[in-house]
């Protein structure tokens, strides 16, 4: 699995955030079509928001653009308008998953969301400076960052 981290995201809206996160994944191994990845996650977001509350959003898609699971995590101090009522997301985790693997996709998303529901974890995620620690808090650390954006 490939992971990218951006702890200082600045985006005007959800679509912008998704575009930035997905694009950051484009050069990674396992991504066969970066443009398609962006389009698929955006299309999925258009159907139903992936804002899950508590300032957390989980834009995601099952897509043929990837051959392995890819994850891009980001933090936005200002927040990005994500929810149906304009709720702002501060923690955004984008997941791209190969189409065939429904069960692993759900299991992975579930574990991720379970971490993100813990207030303590969220509080630390919002303040932590080290990308490695950020990933550790999300229990993504064993999947070493394949590339990391500015932090």
């Amino acid at each position, binding site marked *: 699995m490939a992971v990218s981290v951006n702890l200082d995201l600045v985006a005007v809206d959800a679509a912008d955030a998704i575009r930035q996160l997905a694009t950051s994944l484009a050069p990674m191994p396992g991504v066969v079509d970066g443009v398609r990845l962006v389009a698929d996650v955006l299309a999925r977001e258009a*159907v139903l928001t992936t804002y*899950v509350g508590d300032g957390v959003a989980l834009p*995601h898609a099952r897509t043929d653009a990837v051959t392995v699971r890819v994850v891009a995590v980001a933090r936005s101090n200002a927040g990005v308008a994500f929810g149906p009522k304009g709720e702002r997301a501060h923690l955004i985790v984008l997941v791209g998953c190969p189409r065939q693997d429904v069960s692993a996709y759900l299991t992975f998303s579930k574990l991720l*969301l379970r971490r993100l529901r813990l207030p303590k974890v969220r509080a630390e995620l919002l303040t932590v400076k080290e990308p490695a620690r950020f990933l550790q808090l999300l229990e993504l650390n064993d999947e070493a960052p394949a590339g990391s954006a500015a932090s």
Partner: protein
Amino acid sequence: MNEGNLFFLLRAWLWLRRKARPTDVQWNLAMAVVVGVMGAGLGLLFKQATLVLQKMLTGGAGAGLAAFAQLPPWQRVAIPTVGGLLAGLTLMLGEKFVRQRPTEYMEAITLGDGRLPVKSSLYRSLAAMLSIASGTAIGKEGPLVQLSALAASVLGQVRKLPPARRRLLLACGAAAGVAAAYNAPIAAALFVSEITVGSLAMESLGPLIFASVASIVTVHIFSDASPLYRLEHFALPHWTELVCFCVVGIACGLMAALFLAMLEQFKKWFRKVTIPLAGKLALGGLLVGLIALAHPEVTGNGYDVLKSLLHGETVLRPGEWLWQAVLLILLARMVATSAAFGSGAVGGVFTPTLVVGACTGSLCWLAFAQLFPDLRIDQAGFATVGMGAVLAAATQAPFMSILMIFEMTLSYEVMIPLMLASVIGYYTFRGFGMHSLYHHGPPDAYDIFNRPLETLTVADIMQTEPRTIGPQAGFGEVAGQFLAGGFDRQYMVGPDRRLLGVVRLEDLAEHLHSRALAAAFIAGDIAHDNPPSLDTRTPLPEALVLFIHEHEDELPVVRAGTGELAGTLTRNDLLLTLAEAGKRTAPHH
């Protein structure tokens, strides 16, 4: 309902299903009880309604043979004629306005897929009530059983049961009806099992017994619980007397063959008469009425005649039965019932068959009593054994017949000669190579179970109306459908009904603890893409291969070419169809 509640409910429901999920067998048994109670209730209603109608038609003279015999002669002719006319008109109107092929319950269980047409069954029941109430020489139990089976069939269709379980439920309805009609729950379960299902496997017999018991208990709550024809004083026969019963068995087998041949012959004659159905039924009623002028005993199903034969008293005039009287009643009854039945009247021939048997047995007794003055067994005993033997011969179901007579008379002593004569009657009749009372003519081509296996495709046996969901449906909608349905698959289709994917309940089950997950996912996220599917034109053996290969219990069926979702097929239905079709075609090859 908000998402959270739905989510909680689905979780609770899944937990319950896992912990306390009733097996198919338990579910069938529970449904059998419901069907049993319904069947008994309908039976009681039918009997009451017929009585009321009878009082109306006879101008308040009341029910039963004695009342009919007291009517002036012209009424004895007129009432069955008018009754036949009315019943015929009902049938004609029904056929005109209800364009539905009527199906008898026997046929629906043995040949069909467990579906009884509702409207045609109802107007035929009304016609049957008119025929029975007007004294036509036909059994009232057949229509009663049909109604009970109809209720079961409706239940099966409302619950959207697959064909095999619909058939079992329908059989339960029939058993409940028979139990209520004859006060004979054991025989009822065996009757349906032996004649219609054709096996005594516990899978079907268990629910049938439950239905019978539920039915008879219901009848006992609301009405008289005594056996139909209780026998008094019956000595265990001496071994020499058993020889006499062998003769009774042979005589009964012959008489059953004669009776069934007459039924067929009258049917043929009436088919040649080219008048409207109402005219035919009126003609049948007129024939019955004319015979009733001399012998009122022929009217009705014959219950009163049976009682008097079993109690050794003549029915209308006091005194002993003379052989001439018995013979006349036997012949008159056979002609009258054949006329009524042949004219197309709706009704049963079960009790009339018993009358034929009781008369035959009585005639044998009258002969033996002359030959052996120290014969210890009385006329009632012979009449009883005769009933069983003719029934066993005509229905070709000896077990059911033996038990039915036992339950009707509750005499254990009668069992030994009864068993002997019933089996002899059965074999005697079989020697003629005739069809039994419950044989169904050449099977219809429409019936899938009778088509050559090679011509059957998935489209013939699939369930239409698959559970579909749009790819954009939220988790709440998916969960709601699973909660409401009781199924394990939902088929995701596009706006053009093309099959896009399958949502599996077990996928959700693993992830139900994360409420946030539900908030972020839609059907499209959790559906399996490109699911294995069958084509409407797939031959059945090929479908079986896919089932084995995919380890699935249910597969979607798509229309050839378009990819449009047409229905679903379960492995169970496929196997049952293959087994059934194999059973039907085997003897011909």
